[in-house]
């Protein structure tokens, strides 16, 4: 390709020190997290399975539980190219082609014994299902309960159709939280310790502050962060380790590094040509290839919705030790997928303005209806009602069979090509007198 002058100047790729130190620390945290499962002696600490959206980490942590997030295990498998094997196994168990890839990856992996290249996934003693924005959660946890015989606590989180929750919603959630606390007291033989919970919540809050500072760096021009691809890594502590001092400290390191980037002019790309908002779950199986498609065009994601699946902290929410249960309830309601389409549309429109995004790229997931059903309408709304150039592409988050690189690349090329052309035309019109 060397003798072809392609329309965009092919960028030199990521600056060398971009994504270095914090990334190393993140790797260490991940290793420690999975490593802990292997090293816990018999009798080990109790293990609860939980979902990222609307999770109740703090409460479980205050009872000394280790928490496993099957979604995260699944995405780690996918990043390491181990998802297909699990998915195929799940299909042989009878899970259909169109079942969510997370579910198939996880249930396939469980049935194969839970061994991954990054550690052994322990069996659950308790299944906490936060039904917060995805119905598949309910079915998934039902399946886990049936295969493990572990008790299932269903934490039913009302769907958000108005920006502020109703009083009844909060009351319903708080009541359920107390029921969970009683269940945990019974199972662990420990008394609930409100002070411990408050302490954990304070740590959560500190991590949340740091995480939001990181996300907001995307508002700078040029952006020192990659809000989509980089966040995929940096989401781990906020979702999984929230409530531990380590998580909060992690964001201190990250933000220090972001400040250094600004100081040293060390940006994700040498030249930020396009600022984009990315909506949707990433294609974990091929995220590097996908990232390259952006880089090639000088496109940096300055804001993304996916990092908000664990909560819309950047829109103001914080866990609050002075209102422990109420704030946990509000947290669960605030998962990104738990927002109705009118609310999602508003969030996205706000982001486009706040982060000065030039365009939106929607990545639809074949097997995730919760996120995806209606993204076509979103695209239509962005283009026609908001005047924001938007591209819709589709693959899968877990199943490499549905990632068609040539097709995706073709679309992204054409999209950025047209953005560039329009920009050139506008510039020419601006320059030409009259």
């Amino acid at each position: 390709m060397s003798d072809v002058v392609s329309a965009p100047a092919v960028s030199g790729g990521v600056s060398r020190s971009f994504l270095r130190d914090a990334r190393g620390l993140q790797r260490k945290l991940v290793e420690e997290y999975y490593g802990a499962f292997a090293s816990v002696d018999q009798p080990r600490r109790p293990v609860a399975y939980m979902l990222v959206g609307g999770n109740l980490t703090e409460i479980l942590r205050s009872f000394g539980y280790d928490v496993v997030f099957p979604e995260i295990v699944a995405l780690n498998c996918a990043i390491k190219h181990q998802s297909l094997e699990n998915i195929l196994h799940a299909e042989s168990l009878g899970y259909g082609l169109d079942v969510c890839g997370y579910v198939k990856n996880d249930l396939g992996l469980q049935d194969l014994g839970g061994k991954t290249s990054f550690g052994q996934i322990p069996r659950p003693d308790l299944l906490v299902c936060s039904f917060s924005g995805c119905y598949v959660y309910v079915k998934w946890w039902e399946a886990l309960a049936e295969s493990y015989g572990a008790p299932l606590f269903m934490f039913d989180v009302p769907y958000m159709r108005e920006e502020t929750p109703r009083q009844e919603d909060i009351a319903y959630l708080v009541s359920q939280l107390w029921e969970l606390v009683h269940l945990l007291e019974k199972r662990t033989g420990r008394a609930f310790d409100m002070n411990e919970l408050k302490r954990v919540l304070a740590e959560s809050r500190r991590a949340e502050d740091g995480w939001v500072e990181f996300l907001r760096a995307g508002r700078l021009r040029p952006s020192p962060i990659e809000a989509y691809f980089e966040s995929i890594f940096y989401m781990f502590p906020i979702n999984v380790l929230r409530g531990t001092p380590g998580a909060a400290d992690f964001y201190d390191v990250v933000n220090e590094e972001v400040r250094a980037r600004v100081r040293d002019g060390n940006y994700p790309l040498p030249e930020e040509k396009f600022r984009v908002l990315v909506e949707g779950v990433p294609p974990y199986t091929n995220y590097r290839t996908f990232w390259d498609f952006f880089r090639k065009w000088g496109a940096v994601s300055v804001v993304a919705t996916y990092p908000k699946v664990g909560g819309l902290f950047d829109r103001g929410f914080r866990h609050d030790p002075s209102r422990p249960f109420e704030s946990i309830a509000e947290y669960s309601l605030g998962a990104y997928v738990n927002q109705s389409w009118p609310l999602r549309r508003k969030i996205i429109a706000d982001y486009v303005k706040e982060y000065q995004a030039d365009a939106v790229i929607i990545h639809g997931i074949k097997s995730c209806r919760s996120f995806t059903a209606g993204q076509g309408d979103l695209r239509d709304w962005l283009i026609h009602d908001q005047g924001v150039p938007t591209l819709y592409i589709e693959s899968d988050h877990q199943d490499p069979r549905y990632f068609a690189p040539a097709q995706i690349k073709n679309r992204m090329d054409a999209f950025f090509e047209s953005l560039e052309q329009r920009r050139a035309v506008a510039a020419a019109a601006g320059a030409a007198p009259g």
Partner: protein
Amino acid sequence: MPELLKIGSWAGDLPDGEAPAGIEISPDFREFTEAESVERIVHLAQEVLADPTFPTVRAWRTAGGKAIGCFPVYTPQELVHSFAMMPVAIQGGGENLEISRADAALGSFLCSISKSTLEMALTGLLDPFDGFVFPYICDVSRNLDGIFTRVLPQRPSHMLHLPQNFTSPATIPFLVAEYRSLIEKLERVAGRPFSPEDLRASLEVFNEQRALVDRLVVLKRDAPWKVTLVEYYLLLRLGGLLPREVHIPLLRRAIAELEGRERKNKDAIRVIVLGPFCEQPTLELLQLIEDVGCYVVGDELQMLHRWCPRIEPGTDPLESLATSYVRTPVDIGVRSTPTTKAAAILARVDAAKAQGVLFLTAKFCEPALEDVVLYRRALEGRGLPYLHMEFEEKSTTYEQARLQLETFAESILFE
């Protein structure tokens, strides 16, 4: 497209089933009130289904009534009814609807019912409705509501959050609050306040319908040769498309005829059909199941009429309605099951004395797909044969389906 249903004018008393205050049954329903034989009713039902313009709803409107479209399964139609509005089951666009715009708005890997429902909204076919209710039975139905607010901004659409925690004491009060949010919108559409008395009356009307539906279900289970699956289905399907006051007497007449029918009991295998609790298979497919030598003695078709056995009006009818959802003993794939799936399916097989299970799941219907695995394990444990097939609202060739159904029947019949 078949001709519109011809509806003549008619004036007279309703022969059966009394309309509650404020409801007047349009004379346009004469064909249904007069239809005497099952054959005639089935014919009328087919005409209604073949017409995507909702002829029965239009007829209702000509008499000045309002109509609310209800997505399956757990929409509290009684609430709509208590406002003297017609609750109409929205169950897809059928075989004659071309999908061209909904695909783009919704996405490619989604069930047909969601696409056809949106297509109807985009092409004006839902104009006879004054509002819509989407229960949270899955992420697709839930998201549809959010899209409806954009594509049909003048017609209120409401998403009802159905709780999944059935043990919390806070669940029923929460669901009552959910109903109240819906009631607020219904009050605005109907232009009158909610009345618990009217709701109590509506609960009784629906109980009457439920009892009849149950009688038909029992007949199909105990004497499957007396009523074909297609007849059975169409009789139920009409229930969501006619004013209840018209459907109830019609169903009563039909059941009386069917119970008295003399037909030969064929040497067919007894199967139960699980999965089509939301999107509905085509009539051809239903017929094919019995054509290859199966009797369907249990099913999940038209669950909107039978997601709970009966609702006692009680002192607070709204609370009773909520209680019925939370405490219903009926397991469907779109309600987190308190029992285990294994026990549930074996109990259903035993109750129907079934020899096999046919999983008939709508293509891309994730809740149904996920259940199949747990059911399958339980059936294998007992050595019970099963077959899993997917269907869509639209299909013209049934070769693959026939091949699999025949094999299934042969595998049970042949030694």
